[in-house]
């Protein structure tokens, strides 16, 4: 280490220590724990105990199915919605743009518990405004919390509400980096606004959309708050249990840290694999 860098590293030491203890060590430790049988005292080294269980565990596959279902349906819907919102926010015709920008971003800063409580109230069978609205247009009430499909839809609606605006703001930044004269050139080329969107805007936004998609995939793989709070710990009957929730149940309710660690590594591996596949599919041609 050069002497002139030494002072900088001395200032960084407190952070690096905390980073090593609470970040690096848990990553290594959980990896090691995933190879141990942790339901016995003392824990013993059993490489196939947790990983073997994972392969044949219906609860794991149920959680994996639920997580992937949310990923496959909610992420594309949310990103599409975010693109539409960003385009609207970017419109020169829009008045009070700052207000809308704030309104779209606001869900992210609302506390998770507070927003989950509000969603539970809104979708309540007897008192919720959503069912009242459905009734008012002649549709029957939906029991959002007792049936799997509505419960899953509720989770997706909640996550979309919370994160679509956030992604829209990121996409808006991407939109604003596209030079106006590219559109003017297309206008002179008699290219309609709709075709400009599909042939110019979307291709030029691709890196930003991929970035948002990667963030959303990682977020969805870790999804915990909504199924925990809104559908009451992945209810009904595990119908909305995600991998994040299964990890919590195994680790902190059953105290089976070995199995929870194996689930955690599976989640991380899946997130990395899906992200890599997506990056490969959307790579720039040479």
């Amino acid at each position, binding site marked *: 280490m050069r002497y002139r860098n030494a002072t900088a590293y001395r200032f960084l030491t407190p952070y690096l220590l905390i980073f090593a203890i609470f970040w690096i060590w848990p990553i290594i430790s959980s990896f090691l724990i995933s190879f141990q049988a942790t339901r016995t005292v003392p824990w013993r080294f059993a490489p196939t105990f947790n990983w073997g269980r994972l392969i044949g565990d219906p609860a794991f596959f149920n959680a994996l199915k639920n997580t992937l279902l949310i990923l496959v349906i909610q992420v594309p819907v949310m990103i599409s919605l975010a693109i539409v919102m960003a385009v609207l926010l970017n419109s020169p015709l829009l008045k009070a743009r700052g207000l809308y920008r704030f309104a779209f971003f606001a869900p992210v800063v609302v506390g998770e518990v507070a927003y989950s409580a509000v969603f539970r109230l809104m979708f309540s069978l007897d008192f919720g405004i959503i069912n009242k609205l459905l009734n008012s247009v002649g549709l029957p009430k939906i029991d959002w919390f007792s049936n799997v499909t509505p419960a899953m839809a509720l989770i997706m609606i909640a996550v979309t509400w919370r994160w679509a605006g956030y992604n829209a703001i990121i996409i808006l930044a991407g939109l604003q980096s596209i*030079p106006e*004269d*590219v559109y*003017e*050139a*297309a*206008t*002179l*080329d*008699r*290219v*309609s606004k709709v*075709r400009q969107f599909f*042939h*110019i805007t979307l*291709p*030029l936004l*691709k890196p930003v959309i991929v970035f948002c998609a990667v963030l959303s995939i990682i977020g969805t793989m870790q999804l915990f708050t909504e199924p925990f709070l809104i559908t009451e710990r992945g209810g009904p009957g595990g119908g909305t249990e995600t991998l994040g929730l299964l990890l919590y149940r195994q680790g902190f309710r059953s105290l089976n840290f070995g199995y929870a660690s194996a689930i955690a590594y599976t989640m991380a591996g899946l997130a990395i694999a899906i992200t890599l596949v997506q990056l490969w599919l959307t790579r720039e041609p040479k």
Partner: protein
Amino acid sequence: MAAVTLSNVAKRFGNFEVVHGADIDIADGEFVVFVGPSGCGKSTLLRMIAGLEDISGGEIAIGGKVVNDVEAADRGIAMVFQSYALYPHMTVEQNLSFGLRMNGNPKADTERRVKRAAEILCIDELMQRRPKQLSGGQRQRVAIGRAIVREPQVFLFDEPLSNLDAELRVQMRVEISRLHKELGVTMIYVTHDQTEAMTLADRIVVLKGGNVEQIGAPLDLYDDPANRFVAGFIGSPKMNFIAAKVVETSNSAAIVELVNHGGARLRKPLGAAFPAIGADVVLGVRPEHFFEAGEGDCDIPVKADVAEHLGSVSYVYADAGPEELIIEREAARQRASSDHFTVSIKAERSLLFDKTGARIR
């Protein structure tokens, strides 16, 4: 091909008027350059012709047809942008053919037009590259190529060379000039660089503060500017302006005293207009119109401050009282800095302007 006519064209952004009733007639096949300093309204005028800006007042006609309410794409124009405005995600070939493909142009015709543009601009070998893989000059060619494939009646250029280095700018200037000869279409070119204007234009439109100051052939503007602004803007290095006072008038001339040069006097023959005795005026002298002492009608002593030797010619930046004069001298390469010498002004090689900048002829 088409003529372009601007009649009393105005542009307002809110209450702020940036173009005040411009009247310009551009003949079919003519190369006209709009030139002026930043903010003079030249690009706004071009964008109004293109249909990218609404017209607040007046009329624009292309090929005899008023186009005020005609969509940009239907005006028969093509535009080359300052930033090139190439589609970054498309290859050169896709950039050239994009507009035609989107409009359902027959494939064979699209290929023919793209091939022709590529041949004209010598970009055949770049067709599969993307804009980021091209140099500035190559991008500019592609931008011009995209305009060519539209086979427009009028080409519009918005400061197309301003992002290029000096050498490439000269090269592209020649190519644009050659392109005009080859295609023979009307071209309107916006620049703030008077050298580009002088070298490219059949006629130049000089703009200032949203007003057309003068329209004319490059040498007409150089030799016979309508006012002090045009005189100062056209020509590089710029014209020298020497403060003077009218001390005597006769039927055919005014005698002016150069106030910062020890009472040196010059008899300036004039036509019909005569300034009042005692009026403050400005004498304009181009750098190449200073002569050796005794050769002209009025001698003024100067002190050389800095000399720029350009090879074929040298420019001496000289202190002459409170005024700095730029003097072109062949002999300057032998003249040492801080040298005192005398230059002479000829009446017929000088211009007279009144206090407001208007020319006194």
